């Protein structure tokens, strides 16, 4: 959803908070989150295996996530425009941490690099990583 220049700006902002985040796929993580509802099932909750790679949301959960994603899109628009508001940095910090140290199923932690650099063992029961 981001242009190349926008990806660079977002990556720089994430890297400033968690160095190396962009190289580990943090921009991909953010893009997947912001476009999660474009898929069916939405790419909010990774499923348990390749046969069920994403879990379905209920209609009310979908409403909540649509609202949340709208707000997040506005945050990233402000970041790209160079006009962040108070609180935006905390959201980017959260996303950078999730992208670096969450499961690779969500687009970040590329090849487990985030876990590798902190010696975190690969889970015994990871979600589907399609």
């Amino acid at each position, binding site marked *: 959803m981001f242009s190349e220049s926008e990806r660079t700006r977002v990556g720089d902002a994430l890297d*400033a*908070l*968690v*160095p*190396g985040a962009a190289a580990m796929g943090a921009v991909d993580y953010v893009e997947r989150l912001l476009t999660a509802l474009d898929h069916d099932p939405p790419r*909010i*909750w*990774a*499923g*348990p*295996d390749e046969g*069920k790679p994403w*879990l379905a949301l*209920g*209609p*009310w*959960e979908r*409403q*909540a996530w649509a*609202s*949340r994603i709208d707000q997040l899109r506005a945050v990233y628009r402000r970041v790209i425009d160079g006009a962040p508001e108070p609180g935006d*940095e905390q959201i980017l*910090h*959260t996303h950078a*941490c*999730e992208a*670096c*140290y*969450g*499961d690779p*199923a*969500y687009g970040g932690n590329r090849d487990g690099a*985030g*876990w590798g*650099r*902190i*010696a*975190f*063992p690969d*889970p*015994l*029961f*990871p*979600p*589907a990583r399609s």
Partner: protein
Amino acid sequence: MSEADCDVVIVGSGPGGGTVAEVLTAAGKSVIVLEKGRNHLLSLDPPYEPLRHFSNDEIAQTRRHLLGPDPLLEPRTYRRSPADGKRLLVGEVNNLPSTVGGGGVHADAKLPRFREEDFRLRSERGPVEGASVEDWPVQYDDLEPHYAAVEQAFGVAGEDGPAGNPFAAGRRAPFPMPPGPDMPMAVVSSAAAERVGLHPYRAPTGANSVTYDSRPACVDCGFCGGYGCPIHAKGDPIASLQRALRSGRCDLRPEALVTEIVLDGGGRRATGVRYLDLRGYPDPPVVELRAAEAVVVAGGAFETPRLLLRCGLGGDLVGRFLTYHFQTFTIGVFPEPTGGERGRSVTHLHDDFMIDSPAMREAAREAGLPWLRGGVVEHGAGPGPIGEAMNYPTGEGHLRSMTDSALRRRLWVFTMQGEDLPQEGNRVDLDPDVRDAWGLPAGRVTYAPHRHELAASEYASPIHEAVMTEAGAELAFSATLPEPVSRHVMGTARMGADPRTSVVSPEQRLWDVDNVLVCDSSVFVTSAGYNPTLTLAALARRAATLLSS
């Protein structure tokens, strides 16, 4: 009542509701279990096998509300006292999962029994100024057979006899299973605790140490506390729900938000409930169910009073005497990794600060209190890597902090589940303005700890810091949580023998509508200092047994 849909409607599918469903269906009753959350636990078609939605996924389960509730749909509010105004915050307040299985899904399944003294605290220890310390109308001996039964139902692994907890209440049968493998660092911290004069023991845990009840043994994946179990080695509450469903007399309906308990014309008897079928969007249909015998409310100590208050049931004390466990964390930072990534989050406990002693009497006297009680202390591992990362500063220091990992990889923690004394002003009520997604008033917490909790925390902390140092920590410090984020929520529909001072009878029936029962931790008279699930389930089993007879 030939037109009834079932004998009993059960509101909530957690350890309380699941236990009631199992007992009643075994006794031949028909039940409908209504759960407002979604179902990630088990198929609703025979043979009711696990859905296996859970994996080792910190994002889905701790960041993205897989287990619910989503605070955008179900906000809660909090303030310390009315002096704060209507509220201090809107969002997540003591959120237990809102999903089929309720709070049993996310817990790391520490399932200790309460001790005899915990049910007669007023008699044993005496009153405390500013608190409402009372005896329970049910005593340990009344509950013992029910404790044993729910230990069997959930599958509790533990150790009794000389190697077990020296302070444990008496039990007439052994644990269903031996304890599982020790976490290596818990062996170290337990040995250090013994050298300091404490009495650690292997935690009674509802995670299989062997194949049990057709469920596999835990393999110590390390994603236990806060997570649904990928292989259902945790038995609470899937085992009870499966047995209820397999009886053919249980209908489990997720996404069913009960809005009202329906009464007969006289207003003294419940005839059923109305609920919103949340599968409908944006206008969920209202469904009415008629129950021939009773309505059991088991929504947990936050949602149960919220429902009763909306319905005007239970009297003026509904929501009052809210208690948590006042959690004190003593953190040890060790020179080497503690190995907390694997294991069942917590494998060892000690109870010493629940036990009366000259030293605690002296500490109480210095604090101007008649006595002190702390709580069970869990020897446990640190957070997952995302949770850790959020604690560190941003920028250049981040990677150094993460690789140094003082707050995860080299961390070990004692968590004291401190007894929280009941106070009438601590309560759940209905927020005057904030509404959930369906227009219902949000629940509001008003809570501030009693000085007893603070004094007990201050007493235990230096002792635990000494244990950490004895275990080899290079740094030890203690902290408490400033806001009520504890998931142990109790006491908002208090049981008692006197309708003037309680909400439910010793049989857990509302005094004003006696075919409405409360079967969750709302009924606790005092919070004790032990994880509440086994006790609420034992109480639920007792109440359901009385109801079915």
